[in-house]
């Protein structure tokens, strides 16, 4: 791996996104609209304070998953990936480049969405705000890593988009957003313990209710990072230089 090649790839991915104003607007605006909608629905109840932070962790993962899996599939289909792998560019440089680019984009998304939730929707949290942004960025990188992995199994863009409900919705249902994980039936609780989004949402919830959440959050982020490394390692197996 070579830092120069990783940075070159991250820069290239961000330049591509920059030419697509509508995608940038969707990435930044949609989470705010949805948070605003939820705050309005649960107006006058404590529910928004419970699920708002969890959603701040879910959005970056879902968005980056879709964007990455479609972008990587396009690289495979257009031949740019095959061509890059004939140059000194390594698989690691390629994947980390994507992770860095979408991680940076996630910082912008997380700062805007967190600010909107706190100052416009009156989200009340006990822990530090900046930690919400850190968790959101790690979630975005998780989405990118899972997207890189999923794209290896997609042959068409239709399939790539269908992987979103297949990979992400079960995690969404079991992550503790709908009901706390410890109240799930035992088998489902056990399954939810194996899914990365559960730990991302645990971290967000901890920041909501605990003024000093660092130890818990560090543990949860450690687990999410483990999933990221595993997903990237598996994804690198789907990026082969040679094809039949």
């Amino acid at each position, binding site marked *: 791996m070579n830092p*120069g090649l990783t940075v*070159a790839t991250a820069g*290239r991915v961000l330049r591509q996104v920059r*030419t697509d104003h509508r995608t940038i607007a969707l990435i930044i605006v949609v989470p705010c609209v949805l948070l605003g909608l939820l705050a309005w629905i649960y107006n006058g109840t404590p529910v928004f304070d419970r699920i708002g932070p969890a959603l701040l962790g879910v959005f970056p993962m879902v968005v980056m998953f879709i964007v990455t899996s479609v972008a990587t599939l396009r690289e495979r289909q*257009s031949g740019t990936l095959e061509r890059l792998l*004939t*140059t*000194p560019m390594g698989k690691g440089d390629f994947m980390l480049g994507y992770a860095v680019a979408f991680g940076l984009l996630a910082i912008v998304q997380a700062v805007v969405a967190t600010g909107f939730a706190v100052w416009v929707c009156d989200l009340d949290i006990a822990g530090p705000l900046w930690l919400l942004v850190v968790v959101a960025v790690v979630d975005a990188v998780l989405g990118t890593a899972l997207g890189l992995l999923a794209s290896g199994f997609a042959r068409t863009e239709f399939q790539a988009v269908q992987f979103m409900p297949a990979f992400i919705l079960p995690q969404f249902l079991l992550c503790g957003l709908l009901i706390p994980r410890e109240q799930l039936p035992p088998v489902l609780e056990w399954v939810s313990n194996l899914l990365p989004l559960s730990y991302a949402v645990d971290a967000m919830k901890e920041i909501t209710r605990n003024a000093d959440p660092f130890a818990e959050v560090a543990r949860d982020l450690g687990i999410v990072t483990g999933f990221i490394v595993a997903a990237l390692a598996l994804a690198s197996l789907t990026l082969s230089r*040679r094809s*039949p």
Partner: protein
Amino acid sequence: MMNNYDGPAVAISGLQVVRGRRDVIPGLDLEIPAGEVVGLLGPSGSGKSTLMRCMVGVQVVQGGTVTVLGHPAGSPALRREVGYVTQSPSVYADLTVRDNVAYFARAVGLRGAELREAVDRTLVEVDLVSHADQLIRDLSGGQESRVSLAAALVGRPTLLVLDEPTVGLDPVLRRDLWELFAHLAEVGHSLVVSSHVMDEATRCDRLVLLRDGDVLADLTPAELLARTGAVDADAAFLALIDAETTGRRRAS
């Protein structure tokens, strides 16, 4: 970037490739000399693209060896030495011409002033200076394939493997590109260029005619014309194919 290796650019022996249960290349031996423009000709489906994919090391092969500049095809030592242009343009549609070329230049390690000079030089070579800041998706097909070519030229690899680089280009631009190829060969680069436009054959130093994954002939353009007694490359190629088909019928 120039390699000081003094053997053949590419040496292939006993190469076998199966794609989708079909023997695309049943057992091929070939040597590509260094410092020449070698034309790879043959009808559609004769295995030109597959053979080129073997040279750059992106094709899964069932048997045989492909040695490029003294190393096994596709090995890490060759990543800066071999440039590859696929038949359909492989560039980023949502980047400008300059950003595309610069990214592939960075991929082979160019940085700073060296990078800018290489990109500027390459844009002149493919005649896209006036379009440098346009997005690829706003270009014509011919312009897009020139960007794809530029992305390989920018790193000045020792061996250039170009799959039909002149398809869809106008005669003036085709002539300029063939002059560029000849110039690159003069200064020591090796080029393998596939084409199905036979009048381009005369611009090559050497011709390899493929048919059904076998080498039908490996000779100079002058030898091709002399051997077949034909007046142009088109007729010569047809004469060779006809002779071979009759030969096969007699044998069976």
